[in-house]
């Protein structure tokens, strides 16, 4: 065995061991690396009670309501399985709209209303001209353009 074969062996074994170690660490961390909880996870009690966490999902169609003379906005965040009502007073990002993905940071109150102190918009990975979007909307095929992608 030549010296360079030995060195190749050391490099290969080293990389394999490192890869395995990384896999085990990431596997152990799993959920802790996620940026937000979905409404289903909140309903299942996975989100921390009495503690700040982030809630992510789609703004339910027709759920955005504003109180007269106040900054507070109420809306429902859904993952199409569970729903969580959110209250927020502050400036919303431009992309905020019904049917759009959002991530809200705040606390779940005793009345099960999520009081947010920050709302961020989350957009998907689709880019197309408005004419194409209109055509897809009309033919009702907007949703099935990429069957593999998650709604959020």
């Amino acid at each position, binding site marked *: 065995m030549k010296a360079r074969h030995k060195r190749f062996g050391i490099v290969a074994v080293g*990389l394999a061991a490192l890869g395995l170690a990384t896999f085990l660490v990431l596997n152990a961390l799993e959920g802790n690396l996620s940026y937000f909880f979905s409404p289903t996870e909140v309903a299942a009690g996975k989100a921390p009670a009495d503690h700040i966490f982030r809630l*992510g999902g789609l703004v339910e169609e027709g759920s955005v309501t504003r109180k007269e003379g106040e900054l507070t906005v109420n809306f429902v965040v859904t993952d199409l399985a569970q729903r969580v009502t959110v209250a927020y007073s502050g400036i919303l990002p431009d992309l905020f709209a019904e049917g759009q993905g959002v991530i809200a940071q705040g606390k779940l109150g005793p009345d099960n209303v999520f009081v947010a102190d920050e709302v961020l918009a989350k957009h998907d990975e689709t880019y197309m001209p408005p004419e194409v979007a209109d055509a897809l909307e009309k033919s009702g095929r907007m949703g099935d353009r990429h069957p593999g992608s998650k709604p959020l």
Partner: protein
Amino acid sequence: MASRLVNWFKFSSPATFYPLARKIAVVSTIIAVVLIAIGLYMSFFVAPTDYKQGEGYRIIFVHVPASWMSMFIYVVMAGWAALGLIFNTRLSAMMAQSLAPTGAMFAFLSLWTGSFWGKPMWGTWWVWDARITSELILLFLYLGYMALRSAIDDPRRGDRASAILLLVGVVNIPIIYYSVQWWNTLHQGSTIKFNEESSMDDTMLITMLIMTFGFWAYSIAVSMVRVRAVILERERSSSWVREQLGAET
């Protein structure tokens, strides 16, 4: 070894690679200038407006190619590091050394343009989600590699120590790439996919690919110019460098 048609080891000698690097640098500079000029023109004037993000999405034509290059250059550097450790070739380490500043520049560009894109669209300059944090770690790996190299006075020892750092850091690359699939992130998923249709208009996609190849050619051009300087510096005591410099002055 001697029976091969092309003896690749011939070019692993800095003295034979030095003139070749100049030719590669000239050709790839021309390609880079042409492709980036076409790519930028298409980014601003040809690619259509996005249905949701309007004109603001156009930063994607710099952001995505820069992010790809930052990951790709790191993998190439790790490859050179492995070759250098296994075959004990001096040029491999010089190539890795020459690519590092360009890789760091692209990692920074990726974070910077991402921040500028995130503020109007998401509503924030920065979040600590898995995609953005792992890209920041990549920038730190580049900076750490360059710092480690320059901290060790003996160049050959510096080569070996920094090669190990490069190889260890390579685990971060799949983490960056798959972060948007493995965990819930604020960053959206991949637009360009290996196994299914890309979720992007064709003109936008072509523009992005032209910019990517332009950045690619740019990276080759600057790293070749840089490797020539590194070769001259590190081989300065050899006779061919003295002849070269004597002939030029």
